[in-house]
């Protein structure tokens, strides 16, 4: 038995939108504490860790822990139809479907068939990040959109004073400078830089709209970790760097 209700669908809509393009299908674990989705994209470039605490829901009931195999792309297209309606989610284990109900003046019910998912062992490298910077998500998402105009990859760089987000392309360059004072927290033990593919970042920043802050863990040519957090939810990404040829 599993049942949940969300008065405001936004948090679910945006977080699924942020991950569904990278990861087609995943096992979502449901426990009494909430929902958790941990998965890696097929190319092993990005790892997603989504946590929706039960407090994020207006109602949340589950008898015993279970794993739901979900076609995320499918779920995303359904959630896009939610508008601002209240969402009810219910597991129909007999038919092996997840019933997703949008309630407003009418009630719309979608059946999402559950799928078999193979549990892939996620061997994630343990990383020491020399820099940790927390900034408002809006700054990050705007910078990424700026970078997209000129290139398909972006460099993240920090020194003692600033965070730089820059991109170089055939048609010109762009650099965004975020001074220390604008950051919510700024811990930099040494200056460092890494380069990343925008293809992944542009999906990841879709989480910006629901998060209060984003914490960026950066090092020298190692993966970057980005934690988008709000009171009752956390969407964390680990993204492998591009190898700089020059």
């Amino acid at each position, binding site marked *: 038995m599993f049942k949940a209700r969300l008065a405001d669908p936004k948090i679910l809509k945006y977080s699924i939108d942020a991950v569904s393009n990278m990861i087609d299908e995943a096992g979502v674990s449901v426990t009494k504490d909430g929902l958790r989705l941990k998965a890696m994209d097929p*190319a092993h470039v990005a790892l997603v860790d989504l946590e929706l605490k039960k407090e994020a829901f207006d109602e949340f009931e589950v008898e015993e822990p279970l794993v739901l195999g979900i076609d995320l792309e499918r779920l995303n297209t359904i959630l896009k139809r939610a508008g601002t309606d209240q969402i009810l989610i219910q597991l129909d284990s007999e038919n092996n479907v997840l019933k997703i109900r949008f309630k407003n003046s009418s009630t719309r019910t979608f059946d999402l068939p559950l799928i078999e998912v193979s549990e892939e062992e996620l061997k994630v490298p343990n990383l020491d990040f020399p820099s940790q910077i927390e900034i408002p998500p809006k700054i990050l998402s705007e910078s990424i959109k700026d970078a997209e105009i000129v290139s398909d990859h972006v460099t993240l760089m920090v020194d003692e004073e600033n965070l730089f987000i820059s991109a170089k392309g055939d048609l010109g360059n762009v650099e965004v400078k975020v001074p220390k004072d604008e950051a919510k927290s700024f811990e930099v033990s040494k200056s460092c830089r890494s380069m990343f*593919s925008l293809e992944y970042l542009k999906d990841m920043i879709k989480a910006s709209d629901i998060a209060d802050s984003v914490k960026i863990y950066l090092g020298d040519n190692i993966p970057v970790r980005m934690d988008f957090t709000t009171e009752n939810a956390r969407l964390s990404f680990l993204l492998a760097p591009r*190898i700089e040829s020059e």
Partner: protein
Amino acid sequence: MRFAELVEVYEKIEGTTKRLEMTDYLVEFFRRTPVELLDKVVYMTQGKLYPDFVDVNLGIAEKLAVKAISKAYGISQDEVMKVLREKGDLGLTAEELAKRKTQASLFAKPLDIAEVYDKLDKIARSTGPGSQDLKMKLLSGLLSDASPKEAKYLLRMVTGKLRLGIADMTILDALTISFAGDKGKREAVERAYNLTSDLGDVAKTLANYGIDAIEKYHVKVGRPIRMMLAQRLSTAEEILEKLGGRAACEWKYDGERVQIHKYNDEVTLFTRRLENITSQYPDLLELSKKNIKAKEAIIEGEAVAVNPETGELLPFQLLMHRRRKYGIEEAAEKFPVNLFLFDALYIDGRDLTQAPYIERREALKKSVKESDEFRLAEALITDDPKEVEEFFEKAIAAGCEGLILKSEKGVYQAGARGWLWIKLKRSYQSKMIEPIDAVIVGAFTGRGRRSGVYGALLAAVYNRKRDVFTTICKVGSGFTDEDLEKLPEMLSPYKIEHVHPRVDSQMEADIWFTPALVIEIIGDELTLSPTHTSAYGEVKEGFGIAIRFPRFTGRWRQDKSPEDCTTVEEIVEMYKAQLKRIEE
């Protein structure tokens, strides 16, 4: 087992052109392959995932492959295309770019064969909306874990271009040596392959149960038997001599050869290339279910397009309307097929492949309920070359390609082109390039949609010397519904009880007319005919000339009297002028 080990063998095989060396590399590899992987390895080495009769195919488009390489290695698609143009081969492109990759991954693990196979299988099986994207992502996932060499072969596999230069026969050699010690038992292994067309299954059986199991191997309903093929000679005498003076002659229909597998209510159809074409012939499927009396059967026949209203055989090209995914039902309605059966390989538990032809034909006859649409091929047993020739011209005139002459005692040699079956085809043909004017002298009652109206007309040309009309064809094609509607009325004034005294016909029409109404007819070619009387004996003794695949052009020649028709002299001239050797 690591995919890298398989790739290493491929590299070695690519490095040689000597078949014996290829065999040695395979033997060495097969011997250390875990048995549960053996069939997969065999299919992959053939450049596929399954035997041909399973309808799951790799073969992703170049564009998608480029996208996957781009994604896996963080290199722009333009750059990938540039390298592809230089290398001219997607495999080499992937190999090169894997070395230059600019996208790191979170963790890389070496690929193993089972995993590669499963991912490729998933790629091949994903269909429908969003499947292209999924295929691309799965491939890029494989590539990001692959070494440059592995990337090269992965790309060749998914695009269906592995082409190691290994023939099935080399794999058979290698399997025999690996699991039966030496090549002594090669024949039994090849026979097993011919009986089920499944190298993976043969490999597994050999490795698991040894050569004894292979020697006891038998046909299996649902797995196509590699078809027996015919040799070719150009004259009836030669063929009869080769077959010991006497042979069973069968019409060689101009259609698609089909092997029908029936297991209770389940029917599967295979082509000569062992592809499953059940979905292309819903009509044949129904006919088979209805007319095969045996519970389990493997039988063969030729599916031929027919004019549903006249029963006339139509050219093979019309079957191409079935080669599609959608609109099959419409195609089946417009160009239905009849099936002409000629062999039975398995009936209710009995493997007939080693039984003589006569016995197989007898078993075939007993196991089906014949109807107009589903019946045994026209056949004749004779030792007389003259009779063969007559039968041959009759077959040609009916729209067939010729005859197949079969040894009465011959077994079914699966997968072989032997001398037990020999075909007799035409070496000359006379293309028909201009229409003729012919007079209607008789009619045949219609069936199906044409019941109540005429199904076909008997047409004749004018023999000036004898002042008679000699028949040249039975024509039922080219008439519109409107034409058919008004024909009985148009012809009713000329209706007579018996064949008209000035009409020379060997055919028995249902209705006879006084020669009056002239129509224009075109066909594919002019052929010799034992049935039609035009120019009888003039080109060849015992034969007249007829039109093959005749059709009405739509032009009524009311301006012409019967004596203004094309004359026999003109027909002979046309026949000779266009007679050309058929290029093979």
